[in-house]
């Protein structure tokens, strides 16, 4: 590389809102279901049907706009984007071009080295999702499933403010957290409830002008986004270095082969013939409505992080990790409210929960463990009803089971490690008598030698006692 280049990236992020019903009709948005089972004349584009806006969609779009510091458009409108494709039942998509619901926002992102910066949001608009084409290889026929047709989406369009893949990931993470905290979407890239298109161009460092950008689609994981950005930066720099020109085009990323290929060039760009949808009346957003939505705003991650440290006394690291997933904060706050010790709950979430999530590739919201059961488990350990090893065993069972009550489970499976005090004392005495060498070492100051005696006790007790307590007892006896 002979020159110093700078990458300029803007994102178009589609987020599927988690309303119960579709954006313009009463059909269920539930994923799955037999093809065309969540379909009515409206979302199937039947002649004579008319769209009616689901207020919940508007509500959630405004909530996302407020959380990302946008101006809310007081008089917003829907427009039709006209293009022919079989998954698009009317052959136009109802979207917003001229008066999107939110504009001029910004979100603060934090990079790994602690630096912070703002990414500006150009606009957020509401639109309907399309159906899905299903190809039957056996008959060589293609079928259309309109279950997804009319599922509400918001598209969040950023300004070209990002300068590295790290910034892009930080921006997406911030959006995801914010929207999850709002309860507006689960924002899962791999399931398609969050989709990102990357607009990227290269320019010489210090240049004020933008280079020609490409738009890359089909990115369904953070890793794919990162790989695609690195790949596209390299591709564009190579072209420029070789004296060529980057073409303005839409590209498709193939994450298996780790390369992108052009889908359509600017010349092929369709004329969508946007115009205001006459079937939908303009949307007026009142001050009152904005205030209402604001009042319902949850505590977001930055505030929660500070509160966890100040009120719950958690270390910064813990507060950061737990607040990365809204569901973990719900478990923590729920268990603490039931009287469990915050740090102990946090330890369970940070170590065991996160380990199990990683090992089984499970998202936090799929955890079956309730805050109540977590609190019970913590208390079982605290009261020495069970030791840590047993607690882990119970936890592993409970984490993916529907409402497994740890108290009941310990009882039913006779897992209590609470030893009879008299019995334990007798065993400790027996252990001391049986390990004169260790006793001698301890007395000589080799405190680690206690392990042999503890081990003897644990073996005799068949694990049903608390190692900490055993330790204490041995020391008492020897002093």
């Amino acid at each position, binding site marked *: 590389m002979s020159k110093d280049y700078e990458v300029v990236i803007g994102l178009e992020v589609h987020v599927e809102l988690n309303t119960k019903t579709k954006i313009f009709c009463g059909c269920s948005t539930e994923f799955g279901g037999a093809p065309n089972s969540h379909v009515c004349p409206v979302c199937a584009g*039947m002649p004579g049907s008319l769209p009616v806006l689901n207020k919940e969609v508007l509500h959630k779009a405004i909530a996302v706009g407020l959380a990302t510091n946008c101006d809310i458009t007081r008089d917003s409108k829907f427009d039709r984007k006209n293009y022919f494709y079989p998954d698009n039942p009317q052959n136009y998509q109802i979207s917003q071009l001229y008066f999107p619901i939110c504009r001029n926002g910004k979100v603060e992102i934090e990079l790994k080295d602690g630096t912070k910066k703002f990414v500006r949001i150009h606009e957020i608009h509401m639109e309907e999702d399309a159906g899905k084409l299903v190809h039957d290889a056996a008959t060589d026929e293609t079928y259309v499933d309109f279950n997804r047709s009319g599922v509400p989406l918001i598209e969040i369009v950023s300004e070209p403010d990002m300068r590295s893949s790290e910034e892009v990931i930080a921006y997406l993470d911030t959006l995801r957290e914010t929207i999850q905290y709002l309860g507006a979407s689960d924002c899962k890239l791999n399931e398609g409830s969050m989709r990102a298109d990357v607009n990227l161009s290269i320019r010489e460092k210090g240049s004020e002008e933008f280079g020609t950008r490409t738009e890359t689609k089909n990115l369904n994981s953070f890793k794919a986004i990162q790989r695609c950005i690195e790949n596209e930066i390299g591709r564009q720099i190579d072209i420029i270095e070789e004296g060529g020109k980057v073409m303005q085009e839409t590209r498709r990323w193939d994450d298996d082969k780790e390369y992108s290929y052009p889908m359509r060039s600017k010349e092929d760009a369709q004329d969508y013939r946007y115009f205001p949808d006459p*079937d939908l009346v303009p949307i007026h957003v009142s001050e009152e409505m904005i205030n209402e939505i604001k009042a319902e705003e949850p505590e977001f991650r930055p505030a929660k992080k500070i509160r966890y440290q100040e009120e719950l006394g958690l270390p910064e690291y813990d507060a950061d990790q737990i607040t990365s997933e809204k569901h973990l904060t719900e478990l923590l706050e729920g268990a603490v409210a039931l009287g469990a010790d915050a740090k102990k709950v946090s330890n369970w979430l940070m170590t065991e929960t996160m380990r199990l999530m990683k090992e089984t590739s499970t998202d936090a919201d799929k955890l079956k463990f309730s805050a109540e059961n977590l609190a019970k488990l913590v208390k079982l350990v605290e009261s020495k009803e069970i030791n840590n090893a047993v607690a882990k065993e119970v936890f592993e069972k409970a984490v993916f089971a529907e409402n497994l009550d740890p108290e009941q489970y310990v009882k039913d499976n006779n897992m209590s490690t609470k030893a009879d005090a008299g019995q334990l004392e007798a065993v400790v005495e027996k252990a001391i008598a049986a390990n004169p060498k260790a006793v001698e070492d301890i007395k000589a100051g080799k405190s680690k030698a206690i392990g042999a005696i503890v081990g003897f006790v644990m073996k005799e007790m068949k694990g049903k006692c608390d190692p900490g307590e055993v330790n204490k007892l041995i020391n008492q006896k020897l002093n």
Partner: protein
Amino acid sequence: MEKEKILALTAVELGKAIAAGETTSVEATKAYLDQMDAVEGAIHSYVTVEAESALAAAEAADAAIKAGTLTGPLAGVPIAVKDNMCIEGSRTSCSSHILENFVPTFTATAVKRLQDAGAVILGRTNMDEFAMGSTTETSYYGPTSNPWNLEHVPGGSSGGSAAAVAADECAMALGSDTGGSIRQPASFCGVTGIKPTYGRVSRYGLIAYGSSLDQIGPLGKDVTDCATVLEMISAHDEKDSTSADRDDIKFTEALVDDVKGLKIGLPRDYFGEGLDPEVKEAVLAAAETLRLKGAIVEEFDLGLVEYAIPAYYVIACAEASSNLERFDGVKYGFRTPDYADLHSMYKKTRSEGFGPEVKRRIMLGSFVLSSGYFDAYYVKALRVKHMIKDAFDKAFEKYDVILGPCAPTTALKKGQSLSDPLKMYLGDIYTVSVNLAGLPGISLPCGYDANGLPIGLQLLGQTFDEKTIIRAAYSFEQTFVDEKKKPDLTAVEGRA
């Protein structure tokens, strides 16, 4: 009751006769079906006659009336519905090839309200394809003839509905009006028609032409029938975002013979060049009648009339080009039998499925929406639309009713306008502004030309003020001496 007596009744009169036990819904339905047998071969008001389901509905209505569970002015009364309103289980083709086999899974709200009131649906009336036309000649299923003179068109696009009422093939009919499609055929066929205020009647189930202009309305034998039906179909519908939620819908209360002090404005722009002298004479005579009955009649300048047609065709065609995209051969309707790939399927299906006038308007609409032309045409047309509304608002500060002709001429001869679409578009000059401004309008007979073709009088009212124009129309109707009343169909009977 014998057939002639039934056919001579208005819808409301027939409803009363059925309620009084003087006749039955089945008897009335049979009378209309008989009349169709006699005259349909010559007139062709219907695309589809649904005799079987009509008789079944009539039997059910008679039983419910007898049981006392069904009352109301339209209980058991046979009516017709324009072929662009969805009815569950009833082929709804919009008189197009592309929807030749289309059977909806739901019923349009306006139609449902009449069904619930006990009306019996006789069949689906002919229309210009997708309501695009002013003559009913663009129908894929062949033209409808004007009952007053079979060589002439019935007007359009609700030509089938107007002709069916005029030829006594139904007691009343539903039509739709995007640029005059109820009022102009009513005028050509010597019947009464109301285009309600935009938003008054739900559009749910009406297959859209120009969504921001379309309204469903009644075509009937007199003002009373139209007011009665309008009252029944006006209601807020949560399935139509543009439907109004208002309670000023007791239109029958406005059936009062009193125009004393009513301020009526005659726009000079509606009486200038291009207006047939016989039409002018009849309409001015109608104004004089109202003046003699105590109304204050004045001439004024409305303005902007010459901009109404271009603005209308830009907006209506733009919306139509998008509304008609869903007819693509993928989900329902006609699909071309031979195609190479998806693109060729779309292209061939739409090329073969749509008629020339529909294609012309799709192309015009696509053009005015395309990038680079959008501002010059579509946005400008919207601006004109607002200016026209402002001009009417200003006029209605002074007048309660605006009076003028419905069309520049009486019914044209068949074939005259198809060859010259621009000429056909110009025939909409007095009707399209009303749709652009969203106002209510009524058309009712006010005379005949030398050839015996009916002349229509148009009364326009302020937004949601149907009552005032209904009162003015009713008053005129009470005084107007209609020397013919009905077309003479004895010559066509039995002609197939």
